[in-house]
């Protein structure tokens, strides 16, 4: 168990919100080292989310670059009352990633058929196995909770969150009534919420 205890200690040593805010203050003051610090703290989780959504390494690298460029530009205007810096980065990452796949869907001729994200992103294929073990406790809990949802609820949530489809688009895609889709996604998120809050001491 010593390894788990060591991992827990690592988890508590993860960069905190106050370090992030300090980083943004230094960025706003023109300290170039702060850009590197922000990148080194968050590039991996942000890149992982982007790659999950866009499914293609080279697109994911472009989007990652856009997200950090935006963060560096807007550091001075960041409002701490809006929430955690990492949540802000995730929000920008998701929205830019979804823009990217939407424009790819709108121009299907540019689609790279040979790179199938569902295959590339399968565990063990493209991830660093040793490092994936070091996910923080929250990520593990979320995955466990997601794993416990009925497949149809998980799929609906994934279509909404990772594929950026609207409820209406999901309903059209599944040829199901809009209300059914909405209910399913709501029940799935509520269940996730309940499982995750049970997990807290």
């Amino acid at each position, binding site marked *: 168990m010593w390894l788990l205890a*060591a991992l827990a200690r690592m988890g508590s040593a993860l960069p905190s919100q106050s370090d992030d805010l300090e980083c943004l203050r230094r960025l706003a003051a023109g300290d170039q*080292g702060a850009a590197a610090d922000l990148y080194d703290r968050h590039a991996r989780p942000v890149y992982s989310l982007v790659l999950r959504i866009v499914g293609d390494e080279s697109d994911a*690298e472009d989007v990652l670059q856009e997200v950090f460029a935006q963060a560096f530009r807007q550091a001075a205007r960041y409002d701490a009352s809006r929430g955690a810096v990492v949540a802000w980065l995730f929000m920008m*990452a998701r929205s830019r990633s979804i823009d990217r796949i939407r424009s790819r869907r709108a121009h299907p001729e540019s689609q790279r058929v040979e790179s199938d994200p569902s295959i590339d992103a399968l565990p063990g294929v493209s991830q660093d196995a040793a490092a994936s073990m*070091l996910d923080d406790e929250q990520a593990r809990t979320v995955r466990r909770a997601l794993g416990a949802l009925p497949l149809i609820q*998980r799929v609906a949530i994934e279509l909404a969150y990772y594929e950026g489809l609207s409820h209406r688009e999901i309903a059209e895609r599944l040829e199901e009534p809009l209300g059914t889709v909405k209910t399913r*996604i709501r029940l*799935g998120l509520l269940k996730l919420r309940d499982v995750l809050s049970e997990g807290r001491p």
Partner: protein
Amino acid sequence: MSAPHDELKVNAAGYVLGSLDADERRLFEAHLAECAECAAEVSSLRPIVGVLATAVPQVTPRAEVRARVLGRSASAVVPQRSVSWLPIAAAVVLAVGAAMYVARVQRQHADLQKQLAQAQAATAVLVAPDLARIDLQGQTAAPDAMARALWSRTRGLVFTVTNLPALPAGKVYQVWVVTAQAPVSAGLLVPDTSGGGTVYYMTPPDIAPPVAVAVTLESAGGVAAPTGDRYLVGAPVPGV
């Protein structure tokens, strides 16, 4: 004129996910201003949407990207001073002989990873450019049963079923993709207690175009070619 709470409360999840149409969003925002219950649900769901961002396989970007992002040329020396301690700590942990322990932890994760990979694969089917739909009707053995197969040659089969009779002991349902040559087994199907369920099956990418999808009742463990009664049968919907 605002629509009633019962009609609108279902939009809370879509609101936090950003999945509502513009009209729906405006309606729901107006409702939020006057409904404490929905406002509470929205604030309780916000963090859940936040953590979905972390529930993905963790991948480190290539080192060259760091140089690009930080506006340095890839050939420039990257200062090591601020390199994350996490990979270093991991290297140390692994180096002191935890390899066997790592293998065990990964095995424990394997089942869960498999489930999540399934959901991700199923999602990929639904957004596939070559998506085909096949509706199945219940046969004599199960007149109330209904099913829908969504199939992509490159990405596999998502199969949703309702009202299948409970399985007799020692039996299992088996799903078949019927081609002009032969029925190809997609996989086994064990419905939930209500006789329903949704499953994802990988299908061979070189499979001939399906002329039908069928479900039969077979001995536990499944069979190489269908022998049992047909419970559900359906043909592809033209033009979908």
